[in-house]
């Protein structure tokens, strides 16, 4: 789960990490009022969407007076922002952050995330702040300084100083940065974050360390104990069908192709998408129906897949273990009948009671294309999609 920058900064303030004064707004009027309230100039008008690269995409701009704030708010609110992280469709801006400008002397990068290889969290800083960190990592990896944090010890003072020294800081700024690093780690742990990134973290002209950005990703497995974070969830930032699917405990991710698929198990679902592609088609989605593939789940799965008008054919691929294939077959038949499905459906059922399932499908009277094995299933569904595309 992700949150907006302004929400991240609310968390920062709670943990004592200094950020510029700012006010989130949802309209032009609110934005102008925010400028009046801040009583400072210039201010930064920042688009609030769940993606990086907002500055480059034209979503972060400087305003020197009331009039400029008004014009920029008009321009940015409602615009579709396209950045390297939004995909080609971009995202519509619905919220702004109006923030006091900072007098920047130096820009740094600071982030905490899980190092899967070392099986502990890693704290990274770099003097190359304000730019794409992926580039720095690729071209000058020596400019990223890392310390690994033992989960039982937590972050130690010397590690925080080590990072501050690496940024060539001195005196007051050195102490301030070390403190901020410790607080960042405290916040990261307390909120069950999987990523906490500040880019840029700056040293101001008057020698203070301030976080100009706050990017959080949270461990979705831990949301059950993070009520404050869950409150911050902005559903408008997520695909509506993915949100709908999650209500039925279905794991759905929309893609750009025309072959829908419904599978039990995440690994098999990915492999099904891959084999559709190998057969010359394009998967329209990832959909894992989990361990209970009954009539109700199959019906919900169909509804979600078919809400995407690109879908021309659907492949159901179930490997029955604990789930019995004859039950799944009955579910499929019932769902096809009730929904009056017009899209061709290819069904491959393997495992427990697969033979009984074949008979049910054959004798059902509904037009289902049975398949044996994944290769056969993929070829059949791709052909069906091609045929439907032509008609």
């Amino acid at each position, binding site marked *: 789960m992700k949150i907006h920058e302004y929400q991240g900064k609310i968390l920062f303030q709670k943990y004592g990490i200094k950020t510029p004064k700012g006010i989130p707004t949802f309209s032009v009027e609110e934005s102008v009022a925010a400028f009046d309230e801040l009583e400072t100039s210039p201010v930064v008008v920042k688009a609030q969407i769940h993606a990086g690269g907002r500055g480059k995409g034209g979503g972060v701009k400087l305003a020197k007076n009331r009039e400029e704030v008004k014009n920029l708010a008009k321009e940015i609110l409602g615009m579709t922002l396209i950045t390297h*992280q939004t995909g080609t469709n971009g995202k519509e801006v619905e919220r702004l952050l109006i923030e006091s400008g900072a007098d920047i002397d130096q820009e740094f990068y600071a982030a905490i995330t*899980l190092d*899967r*290889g070392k*099986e*502990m*969290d890693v704290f990274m800083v770099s003097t190359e702040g304000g730019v794409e960190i*992926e580039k720095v*990592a690729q071209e000058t990896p020596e400019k990223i300084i890392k310390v690994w944090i033992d*989960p*039982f010890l937590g972050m130690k003072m010397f590690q925080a100083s080590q990072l501050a020294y690496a940024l060539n800081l001195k005196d007051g700024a050195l102490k301030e940065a070390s403190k901020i690093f410790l607080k960042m780690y405290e916040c990261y*742990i307390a909120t*069950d974050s*999987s990523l906490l990134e500040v880019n840029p973290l700056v040293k101001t002209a008057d020698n203070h360390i301030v976080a100009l950005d706050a990017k959080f990703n949270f*461990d*979705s*497995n*831990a949301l*059950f*104990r993070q009520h404050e974070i869950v409150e911050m969830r902005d559903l408008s930032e997520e695909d509506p069908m993915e949100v709908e699917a999650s209500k039925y405990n279905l*794991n759905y*991710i929309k*893609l750009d192709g025309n072959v829908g698929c419904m*599978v*039990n*198990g*995440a*690994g*098999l*679902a*990915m*492999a*099904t*998408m*891959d*084999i*559709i*592609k*190998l057969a010359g088609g394009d*998967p329209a989605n*990832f959909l*894992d129906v989990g361990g209970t593939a009954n009539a109700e789940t199959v019906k919900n799965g169909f509804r979600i897949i078919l809400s995407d008008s690109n879908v021309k054919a659907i492949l159901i691929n179930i*490997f*029955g*273990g*604990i789930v019995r294939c004859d039950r799944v077959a009955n579910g499929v038949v019932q769902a096809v009948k009730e929904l009056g499905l017009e899209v061709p459906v290819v069904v491959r059922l*393997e*495992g*427990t009671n697969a033979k009984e399932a074949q008979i049910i499908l054959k004798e059902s009277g509904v037009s289902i294309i049975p398949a044996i*094995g*994944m*290769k056969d299933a*993929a070829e059949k569904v791709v052909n069906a999609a091609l045929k439907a595309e032509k008609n």
Partner: protein
Amino acid sequence: MSILINKNSNVVVQGITGSEGQFHSKQMIEYGTNIVAGVTPGKGGQKTLDDNVPVYNMVIEAVEKENANTSIIFVPPAFAADAIIEAALAGIKVIVCITEGVPVQDMTKAKQIVKKHNIHLIGPNCPGIITVDECKLGIMPGFICKKGNIGVISKSGTLTYEAIDQLVHAGLGQTTAIGIGGDPIIGTTMKDCLALFEEDVETEGVVIIGEIGGQMEIEAAKWAKENMTKPIVGFIAGQTAPPGRRMGHAGAIVSGGDDTAEAKMRILGECGINVAKSVADIGELMKKAMEKR
């Protein structure tokens, strides 16, 4: 021979009185697994599963009174890491954690404990492990397996069944099949499992099934290149997965570097592993690799 578990494993089921624990314990006993005890805090003193299995409050009691040496965990995600640590400190040597949705922070700690005590933890978020015709410690359908000489290691549940099914159709049976789990932090890694299969005299070939995200497949492949004498067939799921999206498993996310399916398949190939481009080719490729030996 086999790896990690066999007919002599004395199994304690943590969370035995829950619905999952009840259902799968029955299935495991039917398969032949030697379940000696169950644990559910607050229900100690009862007997469960037709009055056959004693229930204790703590794992340590199952170890002391029933000689339990192996555990399987079916407790909710909030308590799973605690259950792992309890089993580890009670002296259990092989722990299988089926639970899906364990917070990563809980797992970084639990992993350090099991490492320190030299324990084999399988999972979490996994289908478990099966030694064919001897012992099933998990939720997989046992009947699809056939006894033979191939080891199976996989990050995914149903994809493991798919691979086993294809092996059987290709005339190849299995020694042990392990679902290692799809989370960012898991106990026994792909490399650890390869090393166990290399040592096992009965296993003559291995199938590894990975997916996008992390470096585990690459670490295993590089180790295999230097140390493995038995043929390996590899498959990586997620060739069509969009970057930055979590594909069902918590760990299945492309986040930069060599963690795409394409990169992993290339590196597996460079390390001498027979890479199946299509999931449908796993069985046939293994058959060919075994004939070529």
